[in-house]
């Protein structure tokens, strides 16, 4: 296509693709070329991080040294400095070989992009390289018991005291708060202003005096999130990102990235095609077709929608590159991607039948499938519910009245 990309750029990109392929082939350990099946397969980094295997360590360190834990961040902050086009190539090549992300973290998906846009130079220097190198693990202090979908009604207070804010209140559903080193947190710095106008976005160490966390058990039987309490936690004012009382802008921008990340779950397969997984457990008829016509139809419809969503995700990136993206489009993708992922796991449960019901055994890897199935139910809640996403689309994209 005789786009604006010149022939020289295209040639450079092909060179980059070739080099990347060779490098990944040489450096990605075979064990890291299959999808993660449990939380232990995911490396989150942080002060207390432990590798669950030697290949995990090797893969992480090699990628980190290239800046490819955060390929599109600037090199000066520990990133790979890749252009959007190069980043797309890297992602495609990694997907082709099934390479796992070397490092997963809220710092990469959420805080980093917000700091790049709203942080001051000192904040960027301080935090971004540590995220890139997996040294600090972050958690997200947004939701409160009375501020879920209506996030802007949050009540956690930050009182001014000299050069500090003193923070008191509680958060809930804080994922991995008990493992996190630092928190990015929304606090009310002006209780007299309208609800969106008195919020600040602030960073602090979870070992600060006055911070406690209390794990909550999920229906999956795991406890990845917590109640988080702040009792007169003292935080320097210099830790506010952006302007005091303008934290809502930062919060919303970060949510766009969070939603894009969560919607990506709808694109991620589970290693093998659903049709084959189902055929293995359900069996096939004389023509070699899945011996459950209704399930087969559901899987085929799912496959159609999954392929279409993947095209849309690709297009969303291309539109952003071309400067034609609607800023609220991540909400559209979040809604669809998460609903699709729930469908995927309903199909997997149906395909697995009795075998997918075992909760505790070696054979079932401690009930990996039913637990993963239950976990997906949160996809359409966390990061903003499906109903909230649809509301955003109605208001911001369709411009419907009163939405």
């Amino acid at each position, binding site marked *: *296509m*005789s*786009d*604006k990309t010149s022939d020289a750029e295209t040639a450079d990109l092909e060179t980059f693709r070739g080099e990347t392929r060779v490098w990944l082939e040489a450096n990605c350990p075979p064990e890291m070329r299959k999808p993660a099946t449990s939380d232990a397969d995911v490396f989150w980094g942080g002060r207390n991080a432990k590798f669950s295997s030697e290949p995990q360590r090797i893969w992480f360190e090699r990628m980190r040294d290239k800046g490819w834990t955060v390929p599109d961040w600037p090199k000066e902050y520990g990133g790979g400095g890749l252009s959007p086009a190069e980043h797309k190539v890297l992602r495609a090549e990694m997907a082709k070989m099934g390479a796992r992300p070397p490092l997963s973290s809220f710092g990469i998906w959420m805080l980093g992009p917000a700091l790049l846009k709203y942080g001051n130079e000192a904040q960027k220097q301080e935090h971004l390289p540590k995220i890139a190198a997996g040294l600090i693990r972050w958690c997200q202090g947004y939701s409160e018991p009375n501020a879920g979908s209506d996030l802007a009604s949050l009540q956690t207070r930050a009182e001014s005291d000299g050069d500090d804010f003193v923070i008191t209140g509680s958060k809930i559903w804080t994922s991995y708060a008990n493992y996190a080193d630092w928190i990015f947190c929304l606090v009310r710095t002006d209780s007299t202003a309208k609800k969106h106008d008195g919020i600040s976005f602030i960073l602090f160490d979870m070992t600060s005096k006055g911070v406690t966390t209390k794990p909550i058990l999920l229906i999956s039987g795991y406890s990845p999130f917590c109640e988080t309490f702040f009792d007169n936690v003292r935080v320097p004012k210099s830790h506010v990102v952006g302007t005091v009382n303008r934290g809502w802008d930062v919060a919303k921008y970060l949510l766009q990235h969070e939603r894009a990340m969560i919607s990506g779950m709808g694109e991620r397969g589970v290693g093998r*095609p659903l*049709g*084959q997984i*189902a*055929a293995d457990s359900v069996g*096939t008829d004389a023509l*070699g*077709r*899945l011996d459950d016509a209704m399930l*087969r*139809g559901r*899987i*085929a*419809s799912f*496959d*159609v*929608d999954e*392929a*279409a*969503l993947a*095209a*849309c995700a*690709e*297009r969303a990136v*291309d*539109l952003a*590159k*071309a400067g*034609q993206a609607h800023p609220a*489009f991540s909400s*559209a993708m979040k*809604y*669809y991607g998460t609903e699709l992922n729930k469908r995927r796991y309903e199909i997997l449960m149906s395909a697995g039948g009795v075998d997918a019901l075992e909760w505790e055994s070696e054979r079932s890897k401690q009930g990996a499938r039913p637990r993963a199935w239950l976990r997906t139910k949160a996809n359409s809640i966390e990061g903003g519910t499906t*109903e909230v*996403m*649809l*509301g955003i*689309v*109605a208001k911001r*994209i*369709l*411009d*419907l*009245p*009163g*939405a």
Partner: protein
Amino acid sequence: MALVLTEEQSMLRDSARGLISDKAPVSHLRSLRDSKDPTGFSKEFWHSFAEMGFAGLLVPEEFGGSGLGYVEAGVVMEEIGRTLMPSPFLATSVVAASALNRGGNAAQKSEYLPKISNGSLLATLAIDEGAKHRPLQTSLQAVRAGNGFRLSGAKALVVDGHVADLLIVAARTAGSAGEREGLTLFLVNPKAKGVAIERTIMVDAHNAARIDLANVEVNADSVLGEVDQGATLLDGVLDIGRGAVASEMVGLSEEVFNRTVEYLKSRKQFGKLIGEFQALQHRAAELYVDIEITRAAVMKALQALDTDVAKAASSVAVAKARAGTTATRAVQEGVQMHGGMGMTDQFDIGFFMKRARVCEELFGDANYHTEQLARARGY
């Protein structure tokens, strides 16, 4: 390849949109229908289409065409979908032109392609025989007779069948219904002895015909491609047609959707704009997302066709299946959200519903293509 239109493609879209919305808005279809127009489209407008290079859009430049690709054909189809303009573009310029260009020998190409490009020849593919699109079930018989063949059987849903100057007929020269082997494409003169054409007035007021062939004699030069080996040529041509119809369905869906959203912003009940009711907002938002996702899938399929027609089957199946479910949903929500108004003939929305139903059957519906994907993936 980026999944966005290039500058040239955007310009093509703008000029197609300008021309079509100006000269052939939905009222154009309405008046053709109401006057029971014998041609079923505007010949005059078809000639301006040809002058702009659209009739020969896919035809190589050496045969007088524009030599553009399937993405560009999709761009034009999408604009056609927005106003439901009846046009020979699909049957002649996309499907027949592709069949001739991909399967034709030098003589066939130089005879027909320049005439397609200048708008003087209308051609169409006659494929379906039963109620549903099942290309391999083709059973119209072609038996060898002297130097050529004799064709007997019936075809249905032949787009532009009653006005075409050239029929491309899928026939069985060997094997039995259901088999890939033994399919052959023939170029048939609609005026030949034994050809009976019945124009069928369809729900969407677009052109279609039933065609009966009774011992129609054709010579050996009328074979398009290879005898008995037509399935592969047909696969490619049908996939190109599917990509084009899917594009039309994207245009149609988006237009219905835009009109519906406008209605939600103007109709008042219970002292409020009905667009203020969350029950409608969420459904509108879901539909918006459906259309965006389908648009991407269709663009992906058209790009795949441009890269390699032979390898595009799965992307095309995804695109046509998605286009079918999305358009069906769009027109139903469109009528429903217009309340009683949506049910009236005076209002355009019903035309979209009718056309969507025909597009859904053309070249295989969503079930058909979902099934194809399942088979391709081996379960």
